[in-house]
């Protein structure tokens, strides 16, 4: 492989690597005929990101014909090459990425102003191909907006917050912080943001539902999208199936696939509640009635939190609803996951860090021709992978 990136594209490449570093510890590099693919996955395999830079992105892009090559390396070392984006922008004129097959080194050469040349030789490991299985076009809910909208949305949530819940109706989207259990709920600050559909460039909802996913990876993509100014598209379906966030340009494509919480009773309760009592229209803001904010309470006794909660009957309702939803999900599974049954088994053997499903993963084994050139067998690859999970 031998490719050259020039001018402003160096910064784009650098930003992509920085946003991949929010996902996992390793960078998977795969030069393909349709461009250079950079990928990363987190240790619990609940988040995956891929950037594909088309040959036109480069001023030179050559890959050896007929020989598939792929490798992985510590993303930190690649990040070090592009450490300071600000100085990179000012000084670097050209970035040359070359694979030295004799020495097994991937070489990044930065040609800077005043004839300064910085060379980084990075060693790498052979790897299996990393490929998440998802089909954006089959998703029922699709949104597209300028990254600014999402940046302005996530700014309301504290950096320590792990997950957000996104709910949609025909003309609105709500984003709120996700709090795990009931005891936390009484202490945690709850933040909810309501966005109208006309703030989006594209807003199409077929199924009104909610999904909960990690904020950290979304923030990672925002870093990239904001600097390039590319609109972000968001695709999601039902809880449990991954949400896809993507940016597309004529010369590059980035996809972030994030697992969503599948079994969340709170969420479902909220959903049922929302279904019967639609949220108040936004225009009541200025002239709402103070009486609705009454706290009914006896001054001598502290009010129990249960006083304000709806009565219990909905609970039985919600569990049955949960069951049907789960059943529905199960019936969906085979059709979606046919071709990756064995990978499924691998994933489930690893310790899942969260309740997230990491079911969207297919780690495709190298083709048999590749196997002969590599000392690794399929088994070993899988073993090293599950070690990653343990870390």
């Amino acid at each position, binding site marked *: 492989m031998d490719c050259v990136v020039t001018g402003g594209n160096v910064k784009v490449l650098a930003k992509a690597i920085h946003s991949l570093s929010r996902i996992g510890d390793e960078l998977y590099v795969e030069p393909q005929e349709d461009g250079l693919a950079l990928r990363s996955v987190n240790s619990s395999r609940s988040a995956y990101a891929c950037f594909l830079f088309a040959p036109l992105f480069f001023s030179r892009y050559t890959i050896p014909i007929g020989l598939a090559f792929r490798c992985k390396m510590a993303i930190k070392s690649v990040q070090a090459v592009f450490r300071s984006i600000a100085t990179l922008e000012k000084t670097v004129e050209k970035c040359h990425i070359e694979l030295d097959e004799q020495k097994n080194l991937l070489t990044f050469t930065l040609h800077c102003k005043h004839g300064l040349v910085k060379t980084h030789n990075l060693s790498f490991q052979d790897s299996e191909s990393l490929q998440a299985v998802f089909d954006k076009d089959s998703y029922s809910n699709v949104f597209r907006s300028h990254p600014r909208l999402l940046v*302005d949305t996530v*700014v*309301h949530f*504290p950096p320590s917050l792990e997950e957000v819940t996104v709910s949609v109706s025909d003309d609105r989207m709500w984003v709120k912080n996700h709090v795990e259990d009931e005891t936390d*709920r*009484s*202490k*945690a*600050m*709850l*933040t*909810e*943001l*309501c*966005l*109208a559909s*006309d*703030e989006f460039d594209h807003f199409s909802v077929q199924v009104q539902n909610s999904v909960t996913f990690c904020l950290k990876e979304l923030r990672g993509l925002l870093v990239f999208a904001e600097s390039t100014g590319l609109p972000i598209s968001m695709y999601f379906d039902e809880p449990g199936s991954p949400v896809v966030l993507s940016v597309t340009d004529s010369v590059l494509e980035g996809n972030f696939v994030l697992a969503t919480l599948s079994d969340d009773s709170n969420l479902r309760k909220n959903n049922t509640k929302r279904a019967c009592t639609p949220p108040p229209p*936004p225009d009541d*803001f*200025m002239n709402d009635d*103070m*009486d609705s*904010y*009454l*706290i*009914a*309470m006896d*001054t*001598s*006794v*502290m*009010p129990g*939190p249960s*006083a*304000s*909660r709806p009565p219990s009957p909905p609970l039985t309702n919600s569990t049955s609803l949960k069951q049907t939803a789960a059943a529905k999900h199960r019936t969906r599974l085979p059709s979606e996951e046919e071709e990756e049954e064995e990978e499924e088994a691998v994933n489930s053997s690893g310790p899942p860090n969260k309740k997230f499903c990491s079911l969207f993963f297919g780690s495709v084994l190298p083709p048999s021709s590749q196997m002969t050139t590599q000392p690794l067998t399929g088994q070993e690859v899988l073993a090293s992978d599950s070690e990653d999970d343990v870390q």
Partner: protein
Amino acid sequence: MKFRGKIIDVACLNHFTRVITTISKLTKMCVLRLTPLNLFFVLSGKVANGGVSMWCELSQENFFDEFQMEGVSPEDNEICLEVTPENLSRALKTVQNARAVKLKLTSKHCPCLTIAAELPTLSSASRLVTHDVPVEVIPRRLWHEFKEPGMPDFDVSIYLPPLKTMKNVIDRMKNLSNFLVVEANLSGQMNLKIDTDLVSVSTHFKDLGNPPWGAEGSQQGGPSPSRDPDAMARTRVDIRKLQQFLVGQQVNPSKAMCNIVHERVVHLILLHEDVSLQYFIPAVA
């Protein structure tokens, strides 16, 4: 029990946010007392918070364009809530560019102080954000713990030097010692001292001026007229408490004063138009 307030003016919102951020730097939890005219943030000097107490008083009409409240009863027309000022500060910081911000007491999953803001957008519809900050409603039988602390019967009262200067001095002293002696007299001199086995450092300020507590001061105590103007009153305090006060403050006070009760307490007062912040640091042996 009802409360609702609305802030429209950006400067008011900004000022209110700074006051609350200052308080959030001083304490994790405090009590918010709402009365028809004022808001009070109160920290009573319990052992759990190191004996430090705080009293911050805001006049509601200087901040709020609308302010409606109904206390627990007509005779006790007040609301007392335990809040986490950091949550309020964080919520307010993200809505600085809002068209309007509402603060209201709501009953959601638990009693909450809800901060609702209408944010500007490019489209016709507005963007709404709500932050529900959980609060605990304090029953009336505990209210007596959150009354305004009386002016201590101080020996010396003095204006503070510029707070930034003081902060720079104390930041350095903190590396050397955990305790600091604050001493001052009635002829405008103040010293900040640390004393350890290895080193003694003292910083002297002069011509600071002593506030005239005068006639009204005399009935509250105040320095006795017979006191020798050059006699120092001193108190040894936990240096972190004083540093916290200087680091966190974002009020830019028009007046900053310090009252010292000899070997008992340091009482700091910041005044800024409509806001007053009092902070009591007890002496350590």
